[in-house]
């Protein structure tokens, strides 16, 4: 049975909840109109259509559009060897979708990763914590409004009793510093971070004073 035929069976069962199957490069995609139905659709796909393997769950940030987030589920069946993609949208205000950990247990880590990277919460997830970033990290780094250069966070500085031998020396790169910008023009510095950056340059200057050396670039101008 082809992936398209399987998608049509799914569509026949759920009717208006699903869009017509879209085919691109031999892959079939179904759009689930209401995110709340996703777990029901998944249960049916697994039990009735033999999609016993959840390959992956991914999230997309459609920044500037509404609904903002799209979740993408890749299903596969070991009996019929076909892939199927399910997609559904969720708005930023809601940012909460039902979990599918009850259908496939592999969804556990995939959902944790989406929560970590995109900030979409999963209702009913047994252990929704950050997985790649550390506990307490305040941002969601894969969102489109998160800058590539990163943002400063409230991580406490490592406490040194004395500066390291080469601290502030010629080989130290400050993220977003002038030397970095000249090497990599694509680096982005949001305005809010310029203060933090200058504070770091200041701190480095303090270290220099303590050592009586002068190296490296000066303060940074905010770049828009």
């Amino acid at each position, binding site marked *: 049975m082809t992936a398209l035929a399987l998608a049509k069976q799914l569509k026949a069962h759920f009717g208006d909840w699903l869009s017509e199957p879209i085919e691109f490069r031999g*892959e079939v995609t179904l759009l689930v109109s209401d995110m709340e139905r996703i777990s029901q659709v998944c249960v049916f796909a697994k039990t009735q259509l033999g999609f*016993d393997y959840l*390959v*992956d769950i*991914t999230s997309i940030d459609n920044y500037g559009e509404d609904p903002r987030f799209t979740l993408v589920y890749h299903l596969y069946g*070991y009996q019929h060897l076909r892939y199927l993609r399910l997609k559904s949208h969720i708005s930023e205000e809601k940012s909460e979708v039902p979990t599918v950990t009850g259908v*496939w247990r592999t969804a556990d880590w995939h959902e944790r990763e989406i929560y970590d990277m995109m900030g979409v919460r999963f209702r009913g997830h047994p252990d929704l914590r950050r*997985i*790649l970033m550390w506990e307490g990290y305040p941002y969601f*780094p894969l969102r489109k409004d998160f800058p590539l250069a990163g943002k400063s966070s409230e991580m406490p500085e490592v406490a040194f009793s004395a500066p390291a031998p080469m601290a502030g020396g010629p080989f130290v790169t400050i993220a977003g510093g002038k030397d970095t910008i000249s090497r990599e023009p694509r680096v982005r510095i949001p305005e809010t971070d310029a203060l933090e950056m200058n504070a770091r340059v200041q701190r480095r200057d303090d270290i220099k004073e303590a050592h009586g050396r002068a190296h490296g670039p000066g303060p940074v101008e905010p770049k828009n």
Partner: protein
Amino acid sequence: MGRDPWNLKTKMPEIREIEFQDAATRTLEPKASMPAVEPSSEGADLPSEKMVLNMGPSHPATHGVLRIVLELDGEIITKAVPDIGFLHRGDEKLAENMTYTQFIPYTDRLDYLAPLANNVAYVLAVEKLMGIDKQLPPRCQFIRVMCCELARISSHLLGLGSFGMDVGALTVFLHTFTEREKIYNLCESLTGARFTTSYTRIGGLSRDLPAGWVEQCRKFCNEVVRNIEETETLLSRNRIFVDRTRGLGVISKEDAIDYGLSGPNLRGSGVEHDLRKTQPYLVYEQFDFDVPVGSVGDCYDRYLVRIEEMRQSVRILHQCLDRLPSGPVNVQDSKVVLPPKDRVLTRMEELIHHFINVTQGVNAPPGEVYFPHENPKGELGFYINSKGGGTPYRLKIRSPSFVNLSILSKLLPGHMVSDIVAILGSFDFVMGECDR
């Protein structure tokens, strides 16, 4: 003669024959050390306190930076919480900010034990999006298959070597690394780099095979078969190795599928599924090879599957070398592949193509594709969401190590602390790929 300085003749220790069953006929017999979650009856009234032990992130058996928080009752694990992310570099974020071609070097650093296979997987995904995967010249496809199989052998040699080392057989490690060195030599003459290969390009390869490479590779194939034999004689009937791996870390077929395992770990549990067979890409359909599967799903089965997979890879390599076609290695389309330098410098049109290709990247159509690839560690998938142009809007890397490790919290409880190294060794994961 007649002298016996070490007094050997007086008392020879009795050599016991260890019973060895073929993988296909083995069944799971309960092991004394395994199902001991509930405390034994005589110790039940003794007050016992559970201990929390932190394993990793810097631990020789975690092969990178995996941290596992263990809750122990004596030596028995009652709870295990894996903690990952120590090697997170934000590859997916980086991919959104560069052209498709610029991302190829980043794929080297995913599964850094098989960079060639990652290169191939990534460009195949982009080519699928561009719709040029059917136009690849045969020579390019054959060379890519050889890259994948060399990467598989290299990865499995390391996996087995370090697995053996973890459970106390250091010789194996030295043995397999001798052979890996030869693969690195082959990589160097092929790509110019031993480790970070970045060999493939969208629509082809960075360069053709160098002179004499085919002979070198054939020589290597003959040598590695002998090495695999020797590795097997060192481990497969090794009393210590068998005792430490058999019946441990058993994953049932259902659990393997439910937790989304892939690659040798899935096949070790008896699921006969290999993307090279079920979703054939490149020219894998033309080759004759078998897919080994385990019967029990324990650490020993996963070891056996890897040993056999290397032999099958050598088989594919031999067939590739015998049938290697001649011809170009790149798609004949200047809008995808950089045109030859002499034409760039003499013709206007080629100059424009070169300029656009380098500055803006290949012009991919809007759409989305998922391409699964049978990597040494399992199913490496690239999901690309494109809004058109030379940069992906979203690129998701479905890494096998990430998914394979998620079963640990289910698998480890009930085992002894010392079994962790055997189980982790048999999983053969890479944190660079897990954390991305």
